[in-house]
């Protein structure tokens, strides 16, 4: 039998150390996910499907009720904010990355500076700022829209756009800037307008754009602090009419927070259920992005 050489020993030891470090860094995330799945899934499964539609039960009750208003609120908030935030950040990114004239470049520089600053703001500050603006315009807006409120779906959407749009903008802009100059020249040499050229460039960057959008979506879904004084939260279904945009809505993240801090067992169960739903949403988004990106890469290989 041959004794292992010192190099082999070193190699094995280092591999073991790396493996250990990896396990240590991944363990907390796995533990977190396992806890949420274990505690949340049991609540969801036991009360399926009523937990998806009902309103929360009274505290200390034997039943848990449901988190319907919170699921509805998160769905409304993120879908509307996404629909508004995506075109804004796409257009802004194209504009600043493809700026040619002097004034365009200047606007681009200022936009970038502002966006970088906005990224540094704590989201609670963004929420408070949106609330402040909404509260100060309320008396004037009420003259035209009597049902207007500063705590509303609208405020929540504005806050989410302000939180997530800078991310989308920066990532897409970075992507556009990394496109080699000869590609751009090739597009223009075919006689494409700037508009068409931008579309072609964005298609060229499809995977970057997808990744940016899905990260932004995940951020919107999981945002809490910015919603405190904007979307406000709701444990009831608001009536559906023309004022719906101006009424507070619930959100899964707010449900996790408020129910989790209460001392009542059935409300804490609701909090776990809401965390589980959030985790499920985020993982689904994550998986979808991965799938899209994989398909994309395959497509691109053919192009090259």
């Amino acid at each position, binding site marked *: 039998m041959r004794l292992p050489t010192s190099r082999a020993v070193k190699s094995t030891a280092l591999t073991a150390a790396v493996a250990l470090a990896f396990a240590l860094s991944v363990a907390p995330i796995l533990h977190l996910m396992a806890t949420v799945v274990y505690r949340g899934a049991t609540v969801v499964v036991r009360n399926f499907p009523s937990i998806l539609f009902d309103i929360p039960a*009274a505290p200390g009750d034997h039943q848990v009720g449901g988190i319907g208003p919170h699921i509805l609120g998160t769905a409304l908030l993120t879908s509307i904010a996404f629909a508004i935030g995506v075109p804004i950040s796409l257009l802004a990114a194209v504009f600043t990355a493809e700026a040619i004239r002097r004034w365009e470049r200047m606007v681009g520089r200022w936009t970038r500076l502002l966006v970088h600053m906005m990224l540094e703001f704590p989201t609670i500050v963004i929420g408070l700022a949106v609330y402040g603006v909404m509260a100060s315009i309320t*008396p004037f807006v009420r003259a035209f*829209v*009597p049902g207007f409120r500063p705590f509303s779906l609208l405020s929540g959407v504005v806050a989410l756009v302000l939180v997530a749009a800078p991310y989308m903008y920066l990532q897409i802009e970075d992507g556009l800037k990394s496109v080699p100059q000869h590609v751009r020249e090739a597009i223009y040499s075919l006689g494409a307008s700037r508009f068409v050229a931008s579309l072609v460039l964005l298609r060229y960057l499809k995977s970057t754009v997808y990744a940016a959008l899905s990260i932004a979506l995940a951020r919107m879904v999981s945002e809490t602090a910015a919603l405190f004084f904007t979307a406000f939260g709701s444990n009831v279904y608001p009536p559906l009419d*023309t004022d719906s945009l101006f*009424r507070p809505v619930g959100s899964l993240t707010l449900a996790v927070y408020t129910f989790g*801090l209460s001392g009542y067992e059935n409300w804490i169960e609701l909090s776990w259920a809401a965390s589980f739903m959030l985790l499920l949403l985020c993982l689904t988004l994550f998986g979808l992005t991965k799938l899209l990106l994989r398909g994309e890469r395959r497509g691109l290989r053919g192009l090259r």
Partner: protein
Amino acid sequence: MKTSTMRVIVAVVLVVVALGAVWILLQERSGAPAAVTETPATGTRQVYVVGGGATFINPQMQKWIRDYMEETGGRVVVNYQSIGSGAGEAKWLEGALDFGVSDIAISKAGYEKLLASGKKFIQVPLVAGSVAIVYNLPEFAEAGCVLRLSGEVVADTYLGNIIKWSDPRIVELQEERCRGRLPDKEIFGVHRSDGSGTTALFTMYLTLVSREWAEKIGYGYTVTWPRDALGLGEGGRGNEGVSAKVQNTPYSIGYVETAYAIQLKLPVAALRNRDGYFVLPNETTVSEALKRAALELPGPHEFWGDLPLRHYMNREGRLSYPIVGTPVAFVYLDVPAETSRALYDFLKWVLTKGQMREHLVEGFLPLPEELRARALQYLESLVRT
């Protein structure tokens, strides 16, 4: 280049025009809500009101809202969120809430702002609350003894004048058989670290019973705690934080909303009232104290900020528990008729049916009959104007 740019411009203009048309249509439809409320027979339109404030009352509020909407078929939809008493008052003043709820009432600063704005409003108490003094004394628990305290002793403990459980001033308050069981250990004083109505009520009581406390510390949502400086005290976040600290620290003392003490089954101290009797906080003793305040309750639009201190606390009567208060709701009078009608309907339900046992969360106590009658009377001005 020209045609594609043109196409984009045309598309954008079309979208804007379409959105504008939809908006105008929606506006015209919502333009006549007043007419709908005039004729309740066809009034299927739901009225929506938003409230926010005190965290303590949130569980009770959510139960009330659920039960009320179930009973009335969701005619009025109420949304209440626990954003804290201070935020509740501030956001209500800024016009973001239809009603606010505070553990105490509108603060001095807020009240002055209200007067300056000239807005008309009313305040009504909602439910009875009390602060329990909780403790962790293994020797007492073993022997089945209940700790007895007086306001002066509690104040001196938190001031740092009384250091040990075996202090003669504490010993003399106890029952004969329990006197020997007080250990020669330092008292660990737990308090709230966050701003809270519970602290405001507790410090109001100490201000009332101890001259030294009134001069050095006073009352408020947060105060400075002299016992902390001796290394014999610590803050806990929320009622649950204080409860947990007291539960996990032998020889500690703390204060929480009685509902919490009951829910967590913490030992609660009997407090000596003005007439010299030792009383525990419960429905009888809290009602006994509050009902005496009913006739002295100031007008619905007067300053209520020191109401517990002036009228509720340390009342006479054999059975009166000394640290009591009422979460207070505040509502504007000059709002659309639809809104004030809805608020009237909801608050009236809260003050009548809502006070019955089946609509109360465990640990919350109904307002005494006398106080409820006064509150209902105040509420009438919501529909009179």
